[in-house]
Structures are given as C-alpha cells and as structure tokens.
C-alpha cells in the first residue's frame, strides 16, 4: 500500500509553532529548562523547536542536548540486530533543571523508559517532561504519556509512522506506512 501522508509541510509548521508557544507559556525564559533530543530521530525535531524559540520569540539561551539511549534499551540480545549507538552530547548541567525530552514518535513508550534511565547519569533533574510530535495512542506498553503532543494518531501495530525532515533532504511531512 502506498504510504499515506498525514501531515504536509504547512500543517507540520503550524504544529511546530504551536508547540513552541506552549513551551513558552510554561517555561518562560528557559532559564531553568533544558531541551534533550532523543537519538536518533529526536535531535532534528528538537533543533527545529529551538530555532523557533530563538527566531520568533527572541529566547537567546536555550540549552539543547542529545541523548543516546542504546545502552539502556530493554531489547538488547532480544533481536538479531546489534543495537547501534548514536552520539550523546550534553554539555551543560541538568541538576535541578526541568528536562524536556523530545522525540518524534511516541509508540510503545519503551524508548522513553530507557531515556528516563539514561538521563539520570547526568544528574538529578527537578522534573522531566515529554514532548512528542506524534502520539500513537492505544499502542502503549508502559504507563507513559506526553506532556506536549503535536497530534495523536490512531494506528495499527503493523503500521509505521514516519516523520521526514528537510534536514535529511526530504520534505517536511509525516507518513503512515502499512507493513505487509
């Protein structure tokens, strides 16, 4: 089946703006808030949000880090594939800060569980929140819900939600793909 486009570039842009305003409402000047993009697909999305906050709303100092969760995943040795790590770069302290974890798609919640574990290696945050572009509700395997959400998507288990970005030489859009 042909992939079905759920969001085009315009719709995606509207959502990104809305999310950035929601963040400003709650986090004001971001003095005590840091953004953490979850590897491998969170960083581009997190970067976009940060750019919006800087360009449109003149927030100057917004700490953005990237967190790799590979070594904290719970499916190591449970699939044929070796889990491959990405880069972690958090060059600021998260101690006492509000951490906003950012990922493109929230599905089973297992990546977020791993991220909650992984982030503790960097200190004790005051609070951790979750922001995702897509929430595939009804697919959760753990009690994890987003604090900020782009859109909710109802999908079957054999379907896949794919977010593509300009940064990867594809147009900004979201697809629903049916696996055979």
């Amino acid at each position, binding site marked *: 089946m042909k992939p079905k486009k759920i969001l085009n570039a315009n719709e995606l842009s509207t959502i990104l703006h809305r999310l950035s305003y929601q963040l400003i409402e709650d986090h004001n000047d971001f003095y005590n808030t840091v953004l953490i993009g979850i590897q491998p697909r969170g960083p581009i999305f997190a970067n976009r949000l940060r750019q919006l906050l800087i360009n449109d709303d003149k927030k100057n100092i917004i700490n953005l880090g990237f967190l790799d969760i590979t*070594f904290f995943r719970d499916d190591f040795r449970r699939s044929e594939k070796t889990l491959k790590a990405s880069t972690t770069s958090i060059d600021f302290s998260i101690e006492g800060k509000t951490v906003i974890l950012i990922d493109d798609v929230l599905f089973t919640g297992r990546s977020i569980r791993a991220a909650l574990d992984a982030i503790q290696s960097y200190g004790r945050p005051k609070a951790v929140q979750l922001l995702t572009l897509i929430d595939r509700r009804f697919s959760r395997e753990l009690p994890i819900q987003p604090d900020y959400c782009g859109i909710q998507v109802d999908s079957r288990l054999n379907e896949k939600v794919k977010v593509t970005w300009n940064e990867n030489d594809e147009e900004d859009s979201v697809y629903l793909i049916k696996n055979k």
Partner: protein
Amino acid sequence: MSSLSVNHLLGIKYLNLNDLKLIFKTSDHFKEVINRKIKKVPSLRDVTIANLFFENSTRTKISFELAQKRLSADIVSFSSSGSSVSKGETLIDTVNNILSMKVDMVIIRHPSPGASVFLSKNVESCIINAGDGTHEHPTQALLDAYSLSEKIGDLNGRKILIVGDILHSRVALSNIFTYQKLGAKVTVCGPKSLIPKHIESLGVAVETNFVKALNQCDAVNMLRIQNERISENYFPSTREYVQQFGLNKDILDSLDKEIIIMHPGPINRGVEITSEVADSDQAIILDQVENGVAIRMAVMYLLASKLY
C-alpha cells in the same frame, strides 16, 4: 556493518576491517559513557562473565573487570594461583566446570599460545583472548590503534615502529595485524636475536638501527623485554640493550619530527624507555590505559549481542 563477523575474539588475525571500524565506533560511545558522572550502563545486566587469568596481570585484569562492571555484567574472577589447576585439572575441565554454573562469556589469559582458540573449539561459550602466551593480545592492539588514531587520525599510510622483544611479545603480533588491516606500514626493530626469523613474510620491514628506524616513523611502540619467557641469553647485558634500543630524551630531541610514543605496560623504567620520555607530552601511555576500558566495553557489548 552493524555486527561483528566473529563470535569470539581470539586474535586480530580473525577480524576484518569492518570489525575494527565497528569496535572503534562503539568505543567512541563507551568512552563518552565512562566520562559521565555516573559511568554505568545496564546493557549486560543479564550476562555473566568469568575472568580466567592463568597468568599474572594488573592492567588487563582491572581493565576487563571495570569494563564489565560499567556494563552491569555479573562477574567471577579466577587466578590460577590458589586454584585447583595446581591439583592437576585440565583447562577444558576447569572451564567446563565454570560454565556449568551458567556463565555466558569467558575472558582468558593463558601462558600457552593458542589456548583461547583451543578453548573456543572445545567449550560452548563466547571466548575473549586476554593474551595467550607469545601469540596474540587482541584487546591491547585494539586500544593501541584506537589511542593512536585519536592523536594522529586515520592510520592508513602511516608508519609505525615496534621496538624490543618482538619474539616473545604477543602485543607485537596483534599490533602488526591491526595496523596492517588499517593500512599502516609496520617496521620492527630490536636485537636480531629477538626478531623472529621470516617475520618479513608478514609484510613487515626489519630495521636494526634504532635511530634510523625512529626517524622514519610517525609513532613508536616500545615493548618490554619479556624476562619471564626468556630462559637463555638473547643479548649480552641489559646495559648493552639500553644503549642500543633504549629510548631517551636525547634521541627523541635529535629526531626531525615529533613522534608519538606508546607502551603497553608494564614499563621497565630506565630499560626500554627513560622516565623522562615515558612522562613526556609525546607519550600517550595513560591515554592507552583509559581507552582500554572503552575498547573492552565495546568488544564485550558487540560479542554479547550475539549471545542468545
């Protein structure tokens, strides 16, 4: 290139270039992990590893144990002194007894060359060679190459000199295989009596003039004389060895360029290398030790992902 081509790490001989690159890439990530405030990740929390050291070791043993702890593995360590080996138990029996206690991975150091290969053929477990006699010491060679490329970048086309007791050194052989697979040119240097016959057939150059050899290389690995493996006289005296093959500040200053100095440890200060040189900025000896933990974490992580 997301998994290793082998199920054991018995020697560099059995690895290909992709394996080396994968190990180095994975080590980058673990190096970041061990520089965190909290240095532990839970990847291997359901893996049990036995460290079997039938020969003395400080660095390698501590490095492996730390790497295992950082990966959250359960570990048991064994050294041959005080064990039932002295009661006449064979290697296969010893290992099988340990394996029957549900151990997933075995790290072995043994004085006999080929001990790890022998074990991999006779027991059902993942084997990592931590040094087998005069044969190979793969994790040392991996961390050497990793540390060197951190300093000077891609090793392709670089010239690397190995000096000292090439005949009895397992580091030398693993070094040669590793550097060659990475595209570097290897020269060995030392007393003729300590250079194996026909070593040229491995594609390495032999140079007996120490200063000349140093002038032609980008990095030098200074090996220790393996006195514990030497029963006869290979050179007249330690004093004469130092005069001909000891690296000191004067020689280093007389060279045309700055070279990187490596040493796998333990150092015999004042023999193969003077304190001044070992502690100089050109030496990366302690970087090698730090990287050893990351390399061993990477090797165990990648091999453990093949355990079911």
